């Protein structure tokens, strides 16, 4: 009962929570805006890791592609931020379709590394190769080029926050739909037993390709939102040294679930925010977090919450035939 209700209201609850917190802590508005954006970024990685079972050490590349697609448009071509966002999603679509066939063919360890390689090349391209149009490390500024939309002015933090929250709501609705759809089941089936999926008549190559492309669109979309939020981009958006962060956030929230990415983004950015007040090299904390998640917390926050709620339901109903949370995947050693 509660589970169905929770699932139905999930996207709304998430958005309400962020909105309420934003008004409770008015001077943290940029933090909550970033949570919404980072959630979308983690969602992309969650499709790869949580649903398809693929690890990528190059997710910042896709963030960078989306960010630069948006920034270059706004700096040189047009003024409409919505068009720029669509371009960001479109860049993910193109990269997913083009890179997909050669990437997903690889063994999983090679898949992780080819993405890392791509990410390193990406930084070089943004920083050096295209320096004439990206301005390299100085960054590309375009805030003043963005036009005001009829209802929203994305240049104002309050207004952009509302925009991002609405976007997050829509994206969560789509994500939940994907999770429940047969395509979502195919993704999880692929991870569970790829060979079996072939023997019942599925072209698993195509399924992976579609999954990779969707993941890529989520990531580039997040990059676009980052760009508009800051009003500028620089190569650090696609920094390969930060590739592990999104993986940790995915695990922390609970991989292979609809709401895991939100909890992962929230916890990860929250810890980062608090810790970085005292420690400058907060990468240490990322390292410790990774180890903790791998060995002690493989279900992640959302997985643990679900398990806890299931436990309550079990005691209330006295039923003993309850399966574990849908599709949640443990990441721990030896599982």
């Amino acid at each position, binding site marked *: 009962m509660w589970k169905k209700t929770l699932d139905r209201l999930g996207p709304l609850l998430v958005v309400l929570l962020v909105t309420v917190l934003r008004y409770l802590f008015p001077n943290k508005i940029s933090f909550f805006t970033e949570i919404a954006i980072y959630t979308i970024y983690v969602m992309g990685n969650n499709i790869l890791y949580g649903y398809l079972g693929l690890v990528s050490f190059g997710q910042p590349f896709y963030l960078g592609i989306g960010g630069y697609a948006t920034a270059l448009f706004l700096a040189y071509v047009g003024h409409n931020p919505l068009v720029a966002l669509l371009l960001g999603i479109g860049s993910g679509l193109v990269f997913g379709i083009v890179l997909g066939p050669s990437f997903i063919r690889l063994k999983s360890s090679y898949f992780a590394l080819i993405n890392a390689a791509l990410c390193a090349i990406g930084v070089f391209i943004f920083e050096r190769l295209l320096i004439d149009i990206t301005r390299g490390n100085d960054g590309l500024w375009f805030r003043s080029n963005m036009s005001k939309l009829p209802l929203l002015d994305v240049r104002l933090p309050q207004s952009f926050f509302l925009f991002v929250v609405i976007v997050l709501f829509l994206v969560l609705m789509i994500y939940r739909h994907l999770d429940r759809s*047969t395509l979502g*089941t*195919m993704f*999880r*089936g692929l*991870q*569970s*037993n790829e*060979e*079996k*999926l*072939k*023997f*019942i*008549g*599925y*072209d*698993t190559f195509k399924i992976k390709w579609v999954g990779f492309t969707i993941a890529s669109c989520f990531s580039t979309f997040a990059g676009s939102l980052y760009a508009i939020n800051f009003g500028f981009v620089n190569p650090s958006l696609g920094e390969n040294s930060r590739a592990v962060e999104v993986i940790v956030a995915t695990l922390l929230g609970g991989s292979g679930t609809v709401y895991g990415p939100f909890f992962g983004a929230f916890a990860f950015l929250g810890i980062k925010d608090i810790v970085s007040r005292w420690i400058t090299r907060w990468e240490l904390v990322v390292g410790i977090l990774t180890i903790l998640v791998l060995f002690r917390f493989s279900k992640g926050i959302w997985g643990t919450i679900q398990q806890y709620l299931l436990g309550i339901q079990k005691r209330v109903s006295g039923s003993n*035939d309850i*399966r*574990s949370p*849908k*599709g949640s*995947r443990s990441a721990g050693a030896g599982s």
Partner: protein
Amino acid sequence: MSVNDGKKLLHVESIDVSYGKLKVIFDVSLYIDDGEVVVLVGRNGAGKTTLFRTIAGFLKIRKGAIRYREEEINPYKAFEVAQKGIRYIHQDKHVFSTLSVSENLELAGHAIGNKDFGPVFEYFPKIETLLDRRAGNLSGGERQMLLIAMALLGKPDLILMDEPTEGLAPHIITDLATSFKKISKTTTLFIIEQNLPLTAQIADRVYCMREGGIVAEIESKDEIKKMSFEKYL
């Protein structure tokens, strides 16, 4: 059995199959007619599983041909062979263990746009009571039922079952034997089986395999009932 050449459902013609340099199937020929229950017997390591995986398109032949409804199918990929109407049920009884039973069925049916689970619940009423269960938590017998149910949802013309009764309790084997009889009314079955009494009970025809080759084919009902294939193992 009728020997209406050229009209076979499946025709394996002098195939060789190797794993790298190691040849494990030598010049195997056999056929399956529409509507038959054919059982393949043979010791462990004889090459039975390899033969099935080859028919299912997962391994490629070095020589010979595999014709299904007169079409050469070995060049196709495994998923394409499945789409042509052949379902292969693994020996290892692996299902999509992290998915629920109903999600397993959903996937199996969706491959051909079949949403009607009713007919398979008639064969296996038990499955209908397990829909919300995580498939990985099913017992061996339940898992085998689920696998057969999934195969049936694909509305195949031919099901290849690799040792379906291996490791199951006797009363479950009896139930399965009854199901095979029912299923065989609409679907051709090619079954690998080590259980000889069961083989005698369900088979229309028996092939015996040994060290990568077919060493005998038994067509006579009497010979099958007498389990005369035992001497070829």
